[in-house]
């Protein structure tokens, strides 16, 4: 074993806490959640052990066995066997096992032991095991397995101390156990024998889990609970965020006035700051509270262990439309962003099922669409109470999210019909124990989301807003011009050209201009609208009041048409790039972009024409 830069691989069944341990060891902040399949890539970090040597820690995707059935499991198999391209076999394997579920997890431990490499077994979630009255004879287990065994609590600060010390100490080489590789039965028999000798289990399952699951997994009540939860989330997004949004809006307006107050009102620099930076970025920044409220609910649901139950509930419906139940988690991840969602499809074994999921993932409403939706809803939908309890704006937001889900199911159904697939794939999914979300973890998760959003605002969104301001300002108007300067600019002319294509769906030239930078990231469209309207008007109030301006200038039919457009339009180049990478095919990129643009145009056309006829 090398004294410097020892390579340590964390392996184990899905959802046993490998990534939480990885974060403890390396100080990293990789995503953790209470369901299987969060990690689909190999992650690498390092830490300096108390002895002073540097350790490279590999966090590998969860695997139930080395007989890999999905692409993410294949990574774990190849790394452990030393067959992974460009990577030496690990010097030490830390096999992580859920102490509350050793009956399942020990089988993989035995497989790992058979590799003949140094192994340490980390019995994770020992706190939960003790609470359930599970007694584990750690010494005895270590003797039976022939490997060192340490107790860990990955979610508790200092919960990996024993593992750290063990890794730092030298670990003896382990001889391969004399078991025939193909003999799975023999492995199970050995697991049963070890458990009988070393573990006292008062009850197979947790009584509280069983009680909650009687409701959460009920075919009628379960679906009702799920629908209520979703409905409540979107109500909260609208109701809770407003005071903070008002505060941010006022703050941005005050800052804008103060900063631009030092500059001559007719100067280009004043215009850049007022119409570009403050109108553009301010229009996006105000949506931070809504995004955080949405993520608060997503993080709580992820931590609680409820999500796999929802997957179980929806499996039957998803199967009917041609999706596997395993598609639930990738599709749910797509509510945050389609990119991790598409990457999470690696846990889907069948390549056809995986492709279908990849193609429909962009239809899930990612958080970047939230600023567009809420801007339009706040401007055009009255803030009325429905039945005295619900908020009409929240109901419309819920309907838009539901429209995305419904479209994804419909597209998957069409794909199923086109490929004439009659195969069946049973959903085998582990239901984790329910867990009370950790306030600190949720807080950290929200903090990271806020930082990511602010980095985007200060990075790509600011850059594109400045460029749009430049294109909206130059060339300047000719002498004696009567129209606003933007009409003579590059962006203005481009908008007028695009208007020919988009006028049948009700988009004016300002919307057309905003659609172009919106291709980079959807929320840039809001920033672009802020800039374009600020450049078009003479009133400085536009900089902080985009909503009232569009409410005044657009018809309801146009607003509804733009909402319909954003349910479908794949206006995110990064998503298309990830589809290319994950499918290794430009054809699939063309199919995804083509069908999404086609659906967006048709949906907007129908919405606009119907709304115009009715209003």
């Amino acid at each position, binding site marked *: 074993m090398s004294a410097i830069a020892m390579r340590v691989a964390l392996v184990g069944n899905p959802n046993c806490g490998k990534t939480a341990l990885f974060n403890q060891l390396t100080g990293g902040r*990789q995503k953790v959640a209470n369901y299987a399949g969060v990690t689909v*890539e*190999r992650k690498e970090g390092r830490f300096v052990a108390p002895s002073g040597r540097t350790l490279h820690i590999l966090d590998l995707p969860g695997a139930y066995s080395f007989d890999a059935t999905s692409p993410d499991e294949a990574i774990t198999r190849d790394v452990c066997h030393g067959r992974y391209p460009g990577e030496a076999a690990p010097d030490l394997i830390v096999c992580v096992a859920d102490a509350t579920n050793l009956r399942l997890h020990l089988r993989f431990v035995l497989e790992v032991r058979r590799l003949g490499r140094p192994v340490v077994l980390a019995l994770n979630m020992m706190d939960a095991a003790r609470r359930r009255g599970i007694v584990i004879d750690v010494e005895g287990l270590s003797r039976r397995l022939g490997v060192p065994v340490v107790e860990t609590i990955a979610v508790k600060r200092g919960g990996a101390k024993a593992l750290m010390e063990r890794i730092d100490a030298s670990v003896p080489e382990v001889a391969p156990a004399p078991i025939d590789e193909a003999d799975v039965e023999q492995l199970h028999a050995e697991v049963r024998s070890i458990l009988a000798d070393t573990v006292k289990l008062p009850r197979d399952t947790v009584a509280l889990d069983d009680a909650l699951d009687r409701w959460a997994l009920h075919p009628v009540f379960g679906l009702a609970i799920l629908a209520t939860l979703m409905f409540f989330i979107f109500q909260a997004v609208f109701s809770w965020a407003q005071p903070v949004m008002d505060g941010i809006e006022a703050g941005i307006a005050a800052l804008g006035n103060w900063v631009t107050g030092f500059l001559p009102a007719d100067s280009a620099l004043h215009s850049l700051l007022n119409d570009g930076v403050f109108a553009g970025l301010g229009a996006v920044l105000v949506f931070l509270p809504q995004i955080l409220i949405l993520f608060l609910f997503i993080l709580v649901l992820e931590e609680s262990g409820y999500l796999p139950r929802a997957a179980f509930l929806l499996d039957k419906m998803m199967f009917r439309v041609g999706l596997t139940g395993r598609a639930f988690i990738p599709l749910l991840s797509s509510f*945050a962003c389609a990119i991790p969602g598409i990457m999470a499809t690696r846990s889907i074994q069948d*390549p056809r099922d995986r492709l279908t999921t990849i193609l429909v993932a962009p239809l899930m409403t990612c958080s970047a669409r939230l600023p567009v939706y809420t801007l339009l809803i706040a401007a055009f939908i009255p803030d009325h109470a429905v039945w005295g309890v619900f908020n009409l704006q929240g109901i419309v937001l819920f309907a838009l999210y539901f429209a995305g889900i419904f479209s994804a199911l419909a597209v998957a159904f069409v794909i199923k019909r086109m490929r004439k697939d009659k195969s069946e794939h049973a959903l085998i999914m582990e239901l984790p124990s329910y867990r009370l979300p950790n306030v600190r973890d949720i807080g950290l998760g929200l903090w990271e989301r806020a930082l990511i959003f602010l980095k985007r605002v200060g*990075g790509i969104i600011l*850059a594109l807003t400045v460029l749009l301001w430049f294109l909206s300002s130059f060339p300047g108007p000719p002498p004696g011009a009567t129209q606003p300067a933007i009409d003579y600019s590059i962006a203005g002319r481009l908008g007028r050209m695009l208007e020919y294509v988009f006028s049948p769906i009700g988009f004016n030239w300002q919307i057309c201009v905003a659609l172009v930078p919106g291709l980079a990231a959807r929320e840039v469209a809001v920033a672009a609208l802020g800039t374009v309207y600020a450049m078009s008007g003479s009133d400085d109030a536009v900089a902080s009041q985009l909503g009232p301006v569009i409410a005044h200038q657009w018809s309801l039919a146009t607003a509804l048409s733009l909402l319909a457009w954003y349910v479908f339009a794949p206006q995110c180049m990064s998503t298309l*790039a990830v589809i290319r990478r994950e499918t290794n*095919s430009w054809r699939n990129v063309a199919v995804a972009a083509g069908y999404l643009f086609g659906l967006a145009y048709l949906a907007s056309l129908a919405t606009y024409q119907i709304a115009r006829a009715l209003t």
Partner: protein
Amino acid sequence: MSTFELVQGAIIALVVVVSAYVAFRKLLPKTSTRVMARVSASLNRPGRAGVVRSLGRRLQPATATGSCGDGCGSCGSCGPATPKSEAQPLHFKPRN
């Protein structure tokens, strides 16, 4: 042209060029890396002035890191771009 207009023009030009560079790096990471490598190699050629060569070395790009943080949504979970060896594209086999 007044001093204010001169300074204003310079500031705007700088801000626009930097914005274009940031957008280029974020939206076309591979192409921008290729272009930057060429520019860097061209500036860092032997025989060039020390200042130019130093600028060339500064412009030498690190590996391209297009990730979800650059493009869509507010995700933060997919980390840096997957190296080519780790990508797992679809492979179809005929059904039995």
